[in-house]
């Protein structure tokens, strides 16, 4: 995308009928680190790539619990994501307080979308620079939605957003037909496979990713490092057949990538404990 004379204000249309500021906001989502969601009839899984900038720092929080039955994964401007998560939590708890009942996720998603739309039609605002994968339960089962900075929202069987998400989407497109009837464990495995696709050859370790799940009878929660690493190890044994094969005990030095140099030099194939693993 190139600069042009119609891209200064969000309230300026281009002659081709585009709002460039909104499109630029969607670019911000594409630059963020990957987030993936998949759902079956009864469960929804969210998984994110979570690499710290340096060995000294902690990871960015990318998955937020909004209520026992709703959680969200973000990609893009994480500060905007944090603010929207706070809004979601507020809406959930207010609804619960008034009606003693969980807010149906479909309604929360529409409220979020309307909130985002406002920012595309005020000259003194800017669009939120974050894409949200909303996972939740309601009367009709498990749902996964994607909320755009543009104010649009879509329901998905599975989706991936952020950088190198196309690789994950390609994987998911091959497998999604079975997701509705998948078990919880299979759904988690597929999420991790898809996540691995976005790493383009790097080793998947539990310190570099976050996985969360919500289901019928299971409140939304983020899986702890131990559980995730066990799942990752069982992937390696199963050896499904994704693009990059990884020998279980082989120590693959991560290839020179867009990551900052501080990330190189992982210890050999052991569940890596990240510095400041909070």
């Amino acid at each position: 995308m190139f600069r042009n004379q119609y891209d200064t204000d969000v309230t300026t249309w281009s002659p081709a009928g585009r709002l460039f500021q909104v499109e630029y906001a969607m670019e911000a989502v594409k630059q963020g680190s990957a987030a993936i969601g998949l759902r079956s009839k009864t469960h929804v899984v969210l998984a994110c790539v979570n690499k710290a900038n340096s060995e000294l720092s902690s990871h960015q929080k990318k998955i937020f619990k909004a209520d026992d039955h709703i959680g969200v994964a973000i990609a893009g401007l994480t500060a905007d994501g944090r603010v929207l998560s706070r809004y979601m939590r507020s809406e959930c708890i207010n609804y619960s307080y008034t009606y003693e009942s969980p807010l149906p996720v479909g309604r929360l998603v529409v409220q979020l979308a309307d909130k985002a739309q406002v920012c595309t039609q005020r000259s003194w605002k800017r669009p939120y620079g974050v894409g949200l994968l909303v996972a939740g339960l309601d009367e009709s089962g498990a749902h996964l939605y994607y909320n755009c900075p543009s104010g649009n929202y879509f329901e998905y069987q599975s989706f991936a957003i952020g950088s190198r998400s196309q690789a994950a989407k390609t994987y998911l497109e091959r497998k999604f037909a079975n997701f509705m009837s998948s078990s919880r464990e299979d759904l988690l495995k597929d999420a991790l496979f898809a996540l691995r696709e976005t790493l383009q050859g790097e080793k998947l370790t539990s310190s570099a990713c976050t996985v969360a799940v919500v289901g019928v009878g299971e409140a939304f929660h983020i899986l702890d490092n131990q559980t995730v690493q066990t799942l990752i190890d069982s992937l390696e044994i199963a050896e499904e057949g994704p693009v990059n094969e990884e020998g279980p005990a082989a120590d693959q030095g991560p290839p020179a990538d867009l990551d900052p140099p501080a990330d190189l030099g992982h210890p050999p194939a052991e569940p890596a404990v990240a510095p400041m693993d909070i």
Partner: protein
Amino acid sequence: MNLIDSTQAKNTLLSSEIAASERTLYPYVTGTSVIGIKYKDGILMAADMGGSYGSTLRYKSVERLKPVGKHSLLGASGEISDFQEILRYLDELILYDNMWDDGNSLGPKEVHNYLTRVMYNRRNKFNPLWNSLVLGGVKNGQKYLGTVSMIGVHFEDNHVATGFGNHLARPILRDEWHENLSFEDGVKLLEKCMLVLLYRDRSAVNKLQIAKITEEGFTSYPPYALKTFWNFSAFQNPTVGAEGSW
């Protein structure tokens, strides 16, 4: 012009009088007890059709049982105009709920809690809606029956009543209610309670309305009167044996 007049009028009122004219002090047209019970297919409710104006039994065709949305039934005792106001609030609530058009709908539990919030918040402002409400309904096979008072006291039970019904009907229900009453048995039980209320509650009128709510929806039955008997021997010559009475 009007603005000046009202300020002048206000200047002659004490501040306590101004405050009083802007909040509820006492009810005017009131309905008496409502009784609700769970039965096999859902909820049964009974209420008479009287609207009293103090001690005058003034209005005799007041419907105090009304459906709310697809899944609920609301019965009210107390100030009739406040009941009508509550129906307007609920109308709006259900309208917005329907406008989502998304397969989700507010069930009786949600409506009950909403009403609790409304009643309690009004009570906190010292401007209550002067009603005792019975809210019952069925959704996805789950039966729900609850009550809210004008001060926001709320709870659920298998059988509830308002006003005099609490004192006269609930003891009967405690003895004779059981799970999975048939429709006929439920109605008989309600009639038994309403008869006691008719004999003993001064504001009761002999014209009752029965309504039910089941998974299929709301049904209201045409109003009818109960047969009363006034010739019990214990009440003949009631003062015989009372020392000093006539």
